[in-house]
């Protein structure tokens, strides 16, 4: 069954949200969701890196690894590609796009080890997507990730003023809220499924 790229794009945002249905990329999701502005920048950075690495990884997988029967190397190859791509982009942004560096660049090193990014590259292989489907999936996943972290930052900014039991402050309450958000997102799951 070939899915329409738009369906994949939509599903990656809502029904198969990286954070809320796959629980990937949790570390930076919890660490950097204090403020809407910074979490939005991080979301942008994730979307950007996702979009490019999925294309590179797709090409490397299908043009190099598959012909050589080395599919099992995909984990290590994808990680290397993501890490060096992030490094490279950080250097370029740092040098030539100063304002962008302050909003987006400083977050790039955080993303190198973001499992959502490796997850997307692996999902597109497992689900046998074409290049266009992969791009739609990765950008959709990035936007979905951004949506989730910005929503979380909004909630966290609001609850800052509320009295939270001491033991639950910070990551504790964030995880609970994530769970509730995930439950809410299950409501979307009837629309489309791309598993």
């Amino acid at each position, binding site marked *: 069954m070939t899915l329409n790229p738009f369906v994949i794009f939509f599903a990656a945002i809502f029904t198969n949200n990286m954070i809320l249905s796959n629980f990937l990329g949790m570390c930076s999701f919890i660490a950097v969701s204090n403020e809407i502005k910074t979490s939005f920048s991080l979301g942008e950075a994730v979307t950007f890196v996702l979009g490019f690495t999925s294309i590179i990884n797709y090409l490397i997988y299908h043009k*190099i690894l598959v012909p050589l*029967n*080395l599919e099992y190397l995909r984990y*290590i190859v994808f990680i290397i590609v993501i890490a060096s791509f992030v490094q490279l982009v950080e*250097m*370029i942004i740092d*040098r*030539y796009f100063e304002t962008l560096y*302050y909003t987006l660049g400083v977050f790039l090193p955080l993303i190198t080890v973001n499992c959502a990014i490796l997850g997307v590259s692996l999902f597109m292989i497992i689900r046998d997507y074409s290049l266009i489907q992969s791009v739609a999936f990765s950008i959709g996943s990035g936007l979905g990730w951004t949506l989730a972290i910005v929503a979380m930052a909004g909630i966290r900014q609001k609850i800052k003023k509320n009295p939270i039991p001491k033991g639950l402050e910070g990551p504790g309450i964030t995880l609970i809220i994530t769970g509730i958000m995930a439950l809410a997102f299950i409501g979307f799951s009837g629309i489309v499924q791309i598993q």
Partner: protein
Amino acid sequence: MREIIITVATISSISGVLAFLLSLANKTIGNYGEKTVTINDEKDYIVEGGETLLSALIEENIFIPSACGGKGSCGYCKVKVLEGGGQFLPTEKGYVTEEEREQGIRLSCQCKVKENMKIEIPEELFNVEQFETTVTKMEDLTDKIKLVRLEFQDGKEMDYKPGQYIQILTPIYKESFEEIYRAYSITTPPSSKNAIELFIGYAGGICTTYVHDYLKEGDPLSIVGPFGDFQYREGDKEMVMVAIGTGMAPIMSILRYMAEKGIDRKVTFYFGARTRSDQYMMDELEELKEKLPRFELKLCLSRPTEQCNWTGEVGRVTDLLEKFEENGENKEAYLCGSPPMIDAVIPILKDKGFKEEDILYDKFE
């Protein structure tokens, strides 16, 4: 066989290409050329651009205090940046207050040298040097605290004030892959210029593990120092000292200094430990009473056991302070130990009338 060769060749060539791209980028994009850093409007230093300010200054032998080794997690390496340095980064936010930010205070481990810069640092940081030392004594004070004596090589000497600290440069060893700096207070009085002693407690960290499990007598060790505003203050105010664990270290330096100089001030030292076996240096503290006629030692144990045979005070130093201290208006306090202890003691002292500027403390993190 063929498969193994193909696998190895593929991985190597992919990583090779990426590594080549990265080093090419580092040579071209990451190369900012030489930049000038002007410190305190007097000294100019030519440094390699693109690095962080902290590491650029270390290369010029100027050591800004830093406990985390430039990861942006301790907040010690603040400097005042007057020109250059770019925008304030989100990674600095947690450590630099709004007020400091307006004055241009930055974390030197986050701010990169991409253009010529003008900065201000305290004058005494120019005195900070790296010293090569030899470990000449390692002694167990308790089962968790070691006394380490370091003698400076090549007859070098260090000038320091009682209460200051140095940083140990922990080398790469079996359980750590990077060099890191960790701070320890000096316990010797300033008259001991060619050797210093430290109390190092075992806490499971990179440096304490190195000292406790790997370092031996005769080994070399690099240190950087001296640092710190937690210093003995001249004057005739009554002194109240509070310490737990290795927090005794800088206080020991101050007491030894006072004994040497024959300074006659009223001093009360509150020292808290868990059990009797966690108390150390007790003999020397008793001896100090002879040299300092108005020195009083108040001890407490928080969890004395049967074997302790303890007849003294039971509880924490905060309980002791509540019980014995009063009328702090004309007194000076020196607090040293874990952050929770200090955070608990400060409000008690303020209640007793101590003025904020007369409460000095050194938090051991």
